[in-house]
């Protein structure tokens, strides 16, 4: 081995770019919270309704739900979220836990337009009486996993995409939940 290494000096193979679907080696983490003056059950009812994102997110045009087999052959629920700005998010429901008021889903880059990958958000509602705390957290990576990512698909672009979706989303969730409806 040492001999082989000695004879052949630094000779890196040309780097082969990967298609979308793969992701950056170092995943990123995010967490956002909003406090809402509304009963946790009311807030949870809005969030757990997987096919009705437009009910609480002002940037969402429509949501379409479909049932199909996932990559492991198990029954699963997917949704297509159409944004008012023309964007599309295709997502798979992983769990909706009523007792813990916790929703988990997965964002699938291949059929979406927001430039981030391996995105697994968890939305939790806690609180009591007329006050709720909504926490959104999860891991994500940039869309371009190659060693020199394109600027529109790098770590910063992925973080920007998350902020642009959740910041106005949590704001409008608060408005909707606090309204008399």
């Amino acid at each position, binding site marked *: *081995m040492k001999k082989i290494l000695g004879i052949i000096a630094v000779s890196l193979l040309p780097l082969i770019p990967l298609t979308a679907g*793969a992701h*950056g080696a170092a995943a990123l983490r995010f967490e956002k919270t909003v406090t809402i003056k509304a009963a946790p059950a009311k807030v949870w009812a809005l969030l757990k309704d997987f096919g009705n994102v437009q009910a609480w997110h002002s940037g969402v045009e429509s949501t379409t739900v479909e049932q199909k087999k996932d990559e492991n052959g198990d029954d699963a629920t997917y949704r297509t979220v159409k944004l008012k700005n023309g964007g599309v998010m295709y997502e798979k429901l992983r769990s909706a836990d009523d007792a813990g008021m916790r929703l988990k889903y997965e964002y699938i880059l291949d059929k979406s337009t927001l430039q981030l990958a391996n995105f697994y958000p968890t939305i939790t509602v806690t609180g009591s009486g007329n006050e709720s705390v909504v926490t959104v957290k999860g891991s994500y990576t940039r869309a371009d996993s190659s060693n020199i990512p394109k600027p529109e698909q790098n770590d910063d672009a992925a973080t920007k995409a998350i902020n642009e979706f959740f910041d106005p989303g949590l704001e409008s969730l608060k408005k909707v939940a606090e309204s008399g409806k």
Partner: protein
Amino acid sequence: MHLEYFPVIRRKYSSFAAHFYALAFAAILLSTWSLNSTAGNLAYITNQGSDTVSVLDTQKKQITHTVAVGKAPVGVAIAAKQQRVYISNANSQTVSVINSTTQQKIQEIPVRIQAVGIALSRDENTLYVADWGGEQVLAIDTAHPEKQKAFKAGKTPSGILVSADNKKLFIANRDSNDVTVVETKTLKTLAQVPVGLHPFALTLSPDGRTVFVVNVVSNSLTLLDVDSYQSSTVKTGQHPYGVAISPDGSWAYVSNNHAESVSVIDLSNGKTIKTITVGEFPEGIEYDKATNQVVVANWGSDTVSLIDAQSNTVTSTITSPKLCRSFGQFILEAK
């Protein structure tokens, strides 16, 4: 030799002797000190979010050192004979070398790839580093780290390990759903073995006969025979990211990245006998033989869980700086 040179030589010699004795004395002091201060095995915890490595004494259950390394450290390879620890840094595209007696970074090796999976040949002469962003692995001469040779892997090579006989390198290819077996002597592919969806981390059974591979999307663990490549599969929890095997080969401990838990799997029947709650996004996991603890790095909670392997309960949760991972085999056994 002329006579007049003798005084010079004598002076040099006596100066050398004085230094020698002083150094020897210092070495004795140092070794006594280090025996007292680091009694247990050392777990090297990579902190992806703070560009450091925490050195965790598994006996004391304390972090004794924090070492600055490259950007976004991920993987660990232990060179016990060299007294070196190699750390793969995904974002600086380097490998940091830590002296495991002083716990100081002594070298930064440029590799120009998103370094993730990292492993050493059994003789510690060759360091293998997987390129997350390419379909290749590098073989690096540890004595001359500028000598690097790339060879073919599958898509998004992740975990890598060298067989007990040093003849084969196993590469888990996350995005081609297979394991590449490479002959270490020639760096040629011997086999491409299909496993589950998104194989990520792998480890070797204590008897060296079986490679264990976690399949992230299939929620399963593949047991692969090192010679025949025959395989079997057992179920894990959600999104398995790491696996450790007990020294007797009876139990597998799997970190379930999306279930905040570790599955304890009876390898005689593939059944999960216990699911232990740990921190969020648990990743790197290894069995510490000296203390019979399972060490788990929780990426989402910035903590390390220590699980007592007798009772299968968490006995300590230790804070480690941001986004800890410890991908690979990360425990250095004390002599």
